[in-house]
């Protein structure tokens, strides 16, 4: 399964991004978007999977330094 994930970043510091992942993301995971790291706080499956593709929305927050 390929997970196509749209990332929404809390706080407005990042416009969001879409990335393909081989592993399903989960709360607490850290992802790198551009040159910064973010922590996933919520993962939603809003639309059903199609074929080998699963479509997820993940809300993230900046990782504090």
């Amino acid at each position, binding site marked *: 399964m*390929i997970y*196509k994930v*749209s990332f*929404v*970043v*809390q*706080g*407005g510091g*990042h*416009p*969001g*991004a*879409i*990335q*393909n992942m081989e592993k399903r993301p989960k709360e607490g995971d850290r992802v*790198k*978007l*551009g*040159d*910064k790291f973010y922590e996933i706080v919520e993962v939603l499956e*809003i*639309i059903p999977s*199609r*074929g*080998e*593709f699963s*479509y997820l*929305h993940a*809300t993230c927050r900046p990782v504090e330094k």
Partner: protein
Amino acid sequence: MSIIPLLKKVDILNGLSESQLEKVAELCREQTYNAGDLIFRENDKSSEMYLIQDGHVEITLNVPKPGTEKSIVTLGKGQIFGEMALLDEGPRAASARCIADGTRLWVADRADFISLCEKDTRIGFIVMKNIAADLAFKLRLINLTRKEPG
């Protein structure tokens, strides 16, 4: 090298048979870039879609401060970018820059792709249905981003 295994990982081609994917593969030509190479710039006219065979590509957006860019995401093997060019030939929504030496991309030209979709309407239907779903997914991202407290 066969591109077919990679094409099977591209969601806008989801549902195409092996023989249909071979027709798509015939449209693709390989290009190699090195770290720092600009693939396209935001607001450039668009006519090509890219698929990453190996390496990494950074997508960046211009920010209000002149001459500065914000890194949005880094893409790797099996990911496509510039796919909106297949639909509208509008200006690029972001810039794409190679960040790894020897990054190999497959490039498909819009005119060739549209021609294939017109000749083989089953391919055309499946691909356009997938692109429509992809656009809906992106719209949902925009809607969710707007709802997020700033």
